[in-house]
């Protein structure tokens, strides 16, 4: 970009494209263009947040149960990692405006390191979901052959396993070691599974009479006259929890793709900063990349409480 402007240097500042009056107009045009893109991104993620809103308002207990399978420690850690990367990004823009090449390079590298740490934690979490049968597609989970203490011969029974006992307590204790005494249960076909404890939330809501209309039908088997008989139908409830995990994987997955694209942008920025392309009068690419990076951070600021924390207060009555 800077090179094409060089030809016009006889009457312009370096970095000023010929179609703009001055640097201020150019900067604002770049900013408005980027904000238009970000508004589109708001609507893009907004569609998914709408899906979340619709399903959660109908099946809050299934969402709470699904949420309690996620590890709030990793989610919280990743939130902090992204906030640190946002700080280093903001400081990158600050030093670009000062024309300080070395600090730009250092801070871009730091931003990339934190972005990579985020993706690493995400990979750990996804692996954990795969190992414990919470990937929402049957057959895409780790296949664990029969032969344990659990006798689950029918598909109906294999929907009921107990792999997450320590998860909730570990999250409540803010312990970094949630994986110690977990029992892996057989899952020969790699199905999506929930645990018996998840049903406690339904019972809790049933006793407290705060089931939604959709839940009264969506969790229970049909008795006389095709009316829900108050007996929990595990398969029906499991499929509502499955909706939560679909939303979890799609939203965090798209967020992770945004992070990967962000890292690519950062790599390009690093190269340009290394060459000393950004100065006090030309730093729009740094500013623009920063806007993108902060936007991705904001998406996570909402994903963290909405996915990881929404069911935790139901656990409070139990322990801790």
């Amino acid at each position, binding site marked *: 970009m800077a090179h094409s402007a060089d030809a016009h*240097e006889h009457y312009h*500042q370096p970095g000023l494209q010929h179609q703009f009056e*001055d*640097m*201020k107009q150019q900067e*604002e045009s770049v*900013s*408005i263009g980027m*904000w*238009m893109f*970000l*508004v589109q991104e*708001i*609507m893009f993620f*907004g569609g998914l*947040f*709408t899906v979340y*809103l*619709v399903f959660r*308002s*109908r099946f809050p207990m299934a969402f709470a149960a699904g949420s309690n399978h996620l590890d*709030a420690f990793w989610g*919280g850690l990743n*939130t902090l990692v992204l*906030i*640190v990367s*946002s*700080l280093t*990004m*903001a*400081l990158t*823009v*600050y030093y670009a*405006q000062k024309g300080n090449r070395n600090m730009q390079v250092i801070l871009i590298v730091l931003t990339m390191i934190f972005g990579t740490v985020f993706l690493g934690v995400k990979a750990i979490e996804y692996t954990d979901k795969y190992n414990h049968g919470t990937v929402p597609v049957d057959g895409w989970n780790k296949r664990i052959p029969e032969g344990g203490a659990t006798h689950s011969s029918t598909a109906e029974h294999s929907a009921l396993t107990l792999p997450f006992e320590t998860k909730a307590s570990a999250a409540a204790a803010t312990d970094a070691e949630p994986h110690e005494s977990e029992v892996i249960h057989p899952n020969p076909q790699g199905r999506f599974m929930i645990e018996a404890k998840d049903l406690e939330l339904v019972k809790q809501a049933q006793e407290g009479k*705060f089931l939604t*209309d*959709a839940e*009264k*039908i*969506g969790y229970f088997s049909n008795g006389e006259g095709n009316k829900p008989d108050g007996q929990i139908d595990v398969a029906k409830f499991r499929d509502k929890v499955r909706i939560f995990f679909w939303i979890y994987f799609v939203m965090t997955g798209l967020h992770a793709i945004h992070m990967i694209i962000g890292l690519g942008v950062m790599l390009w920025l690093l190269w340009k900063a290394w060459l000393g392309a950004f100065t*006090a*009068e030309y730093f729009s690419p740094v*500013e623009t990349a*920063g*806007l993108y990076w*902060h*936007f991705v*951070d*904001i998406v996570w*600021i*909402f994903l*963290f*409480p*909405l996915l990881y*924390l*929404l069911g935790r*207060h*139901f656990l*409070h*009555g139990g322990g801790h």
Partner: protein
Amino acid sequence: MAHQTEQQNTHSHAQEDHEEHIGIPGYLAIFGILVVGTILTYFVATIDLDGIFPGANTLVALLIAFTKMTFVVLYFMHVRWQSKLIWLTTLAGFFWLAIMFAFVMQDYLTRGSGTFTN
């Protein structure tokens, strides 16, 4: 020519504008607010607030998230110092999002029981 460029730089409009930004202590302060918000939202989620009114936990979590977002948008994304056009663009984004939420939910929340499942 280099001399001429340098002269222009010192009077550069852009530079004047960006001197109003909050500087390193300011950025660190915003960072501190974001970290406190994250820790707060983590621990508030373990307290059962739904006894006050249903959905209180979610409301508190969203209020903290909105506060965090506001600080990021205003300071890290520099919207506070931007032109009215960019303010308008930003606010329009959230306005259209609110329309999408409102119009979808006014449908789903007013459906009779059981319409959604068979």
